[in-house]
């Protein structure tokens, strides 16, 4: 098939960008969207132009690198799929497609379709973990966890950190991402000791990074390639409220000896 692509080109964070139009021919329905971009880049290279920079790696929907806003939809028209899993049979001959980067204040522009998502790492650093050093863990079967609980935890843990939720949200909120981690760990018995601290610290970091607030629009769960439900945001809000009411900073003198 023959397509017309309008692709966002921007050489760096401080230079202005614009949409460039590229016709592309010979696209096969079995190609993935990124293989279509490989083809475009080979074409641009042979024409002596600079290829389009875009983030990608595993190409099987799990690393969370790829991030394209495709005709206004994060990861394009297929539900529950990343950009790399989107295949060209979703389009038809003659289609025009607009491809842009994720746009959010907390995801600064790097180049073309690449943005900086390190804010997500800093939200995890704030408390998205269980504090256990290597060694000394007790036998894994001594912690009993019901199947229903671990399944719900796994639903949240499936997050790949791609940022589609932020890109799709009219407020550029990271609540689905943050709520997913708070839910994954907060549901498990191992996650209880730090549950209050985790919710407070992660939400605070999310605000510091410049993400917007959640107004329960629900765009995030529609865009999420792992179909994480906004129930995780409900859980985050509840954990945050409870923690804010009861959490007391550990005394500085405690534990000395």
């Amino acid at each position, binding site marked *: 098939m023959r397509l017309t692509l309008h692709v966002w080109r921007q*050489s760096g964070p401080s230079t202005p960008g614009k949409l460039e139009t590229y016709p592309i021919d010979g696209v*096969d329905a079995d190609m*993935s969207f*990124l*293989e279509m971009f*490989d*083809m475009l880049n*080979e074409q641009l*290279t*042979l024409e002596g132009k*600079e*290829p389009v*920079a875009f*983030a*990608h*790696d*595993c*190409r*099987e*929907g*799990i*690393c*969370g*690198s790829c991030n394209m806003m495709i005709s206004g939809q994060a990861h394009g028209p297929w539900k529950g799929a990343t950009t790399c*899993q989107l*295949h060209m049979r979703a389009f038809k001959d003659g289609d025009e497609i607009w491809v842009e980067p994720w746009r959010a204040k907390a995801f600064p522009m*790097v*180049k073309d379709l*690449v943005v900086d*998502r*390190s804010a*997500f*790492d800093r939200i*995890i*650093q*704030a408390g*998205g*973990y*269980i*504090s*256990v*050093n*290597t060694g000394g*863990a*007790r036998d*894994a*079967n001594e*912690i*009993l*966890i*019901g*199947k229903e609980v*671990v399944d719900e935890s*796994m639903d949240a*843990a*499936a997050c790949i950190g791609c940022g589609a939720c932020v890109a799709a949200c009219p407020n550029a909120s990271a609540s689905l991402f943050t709520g997913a981690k708070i839910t994954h*760990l907060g549901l*498990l018995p*191992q*996650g209880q000791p730090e549950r209050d601290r985790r919710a407070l610290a992660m939400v605070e970091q999310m605000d510091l990074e410049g993400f917007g607030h959640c107004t329960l629009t629900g765009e995030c769960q529609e865009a999420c390639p792992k179909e994480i439900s906004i129930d995780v945001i409900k859980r985050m809000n509840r954990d945050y409220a409870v923690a804010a009411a009861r959490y007391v900073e550990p005394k500085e003198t405690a534990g000395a000896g």
Partner: protein
Amino acid sequence: MTELNSRIPAGPIEKKWDQHRFDMKLVNPANKRKYDVIVVGAGLAGASAAATMAELGYNVSCFVFHDSPRRAHSIAAQGGINAAKNYQNDGDSVYRLFYDTVKGGDFRAREANVYRLAQVSVNIIDQCVAQGVPFAREYGGLLANRSFGGAQVSRTFYARGQTGQQLLIGAYQALERQIALGKVKMHTHSEMLELVVADGRARGIVVRNLLTGAVTAHAADAVVLATGGYGNVFFLSTNAMYSNVTASWRAHKKGAAFANPCYTQIHPTCIPVSGEHQSKLTLMSESLRNDGRVWVPKKQGDTRPPSQIPESERDYYLERKYPSFGNLAPRDIASRAAKEACDDGRGVGPGGLGVYLDFADSIKRLGKKTISERYGNLFDMYQRITDENPYEVPMRIYPAVHYTMGGLWVDYNLMSNVPGLHVIGEANFSDHGANRLGASALMQGLADGYFVLPYTIGNYLAGVKPEKVDVNTHPAFTDAVRAVKQQGETLLGIKGKRTVDSFHKELGKIMWDKCGMARTREGLEEALQRIPALREEFWRNVNVPGSGASLNQSLEKAGRVADFIELGELMCRDALHREESCGGHFRVEYQDDGEAQRNDDDFAYVAAWEWAGNGQAQRLLKEPLVYENVKMATRSYK
């Protein structure tokens, strides 16, 4: 000439690791913070090692070329992780896991390393659960297990089809915690392009910042490479697009021996190639062979749709040839059997390069709901790529390059022959011999990172003084920086007519045809003519657009492909010299009716190749393999 000393501790195999841990020197807690350690890569091995060493008190700097350590390719592992827990009461033990792994590796792995791997496997599961990894559980709250190829017990722990993701997220979170505590300094978008060897030991690395193009040197008291495998030398593989050999290769060129490069794992269950545009291959987890039956039509060139081929005209060839292991035969054997069926003209799908993986019986027996609970995400992935519904028609699968057992040579302490340079995870060669069993890569990565290297590196560091070195003046560092800058400028200056990808594809085709599932003397000799010619053309005719001063994905790739071309040549040389068939290395001349024919008299050794200079053939060093506990035998899964 370099001597390889494997430093395997003396004593009975079940005591070696405990005794060695006692014998090793320790760095006292107050002194640990005086030592700097560089870790390159943050997949399962790198992230777990960096986090654990930081917990112990070392100053760790971790370098990744991704934008975040959570993107490493360990994340894509689907099926599971082995551990000798014997939770299923089916007769598993440390010894059985050890035995299965040595046998699965076709008696080409080092016994002592494998035994230690089996020992610490049980600690890994405990550690991961403590971190919050949501492994699958039974209704009663206990951990669930599934079976995997090459084993007759159920010892594989899993988190749906996303086990690698969940284990990596666990290690990543432990790492992020240490970053927040200031014990790990994380360098993202930083690609290692040179190892710095000063005064006879590894003292640092040179990296290029992929966003700014800045080339910088970093010093440490020890360097750890956790940079994964090199399957992308074949262009098409199940590896991520960025996976590459560059860090290992640059270390090789600085003296680190490269062991068993020809041992490549071709995974039997991948989605077949659909066209010329294909950029990578997608794995369908081996766990599917628990409930899927592999078959091809009995008749050659049978083009009927599968539903119209009656039972009596189907050949369930794995069940027929290997009745005791059936569809769970190890990967090398299952792949070769698929190739054999296709070569015989009985393959299915476009080009006849495919076999069926059929779930109809399991769906009838267990119901669609159970199958969907076990493999739902894999079935969805398959449908997205092929536009076929595997609940209704059998999957079509074909073998694809998946894992590389070879890698930098290391001793029992996971240190290479360059003092101070440690290599962990898929990047080293040590535990899988000539074939890796399913669900053992995750086990090895985390064993090395959580439970082996953090101890053994102390033994090395206790023997060296923590000395600072000035990277701006020490000639080993300034020379390395200059060499990296020079290579970038050379690549950008060639301005030839061919794209980087076109070279990579051509190399991949040579490797797949001549050094893939079946290798011959003639084919390998031909490849050894063609690859040097390709290398020569690359350096004359590659076109790398853009500049070196900003994000330039073509320039990054050009450096990696240049290294792949050199590696490809070494792999062919290794495959040519190994005149036997074992595991993933199948030489057509050495077979017994399709089964690999090993030659233990002449080839029971690790082939470690030492760099001898540009354009020169590497020198072969041998580490003999001695089996004191497992009797070497012809591997049988019949």
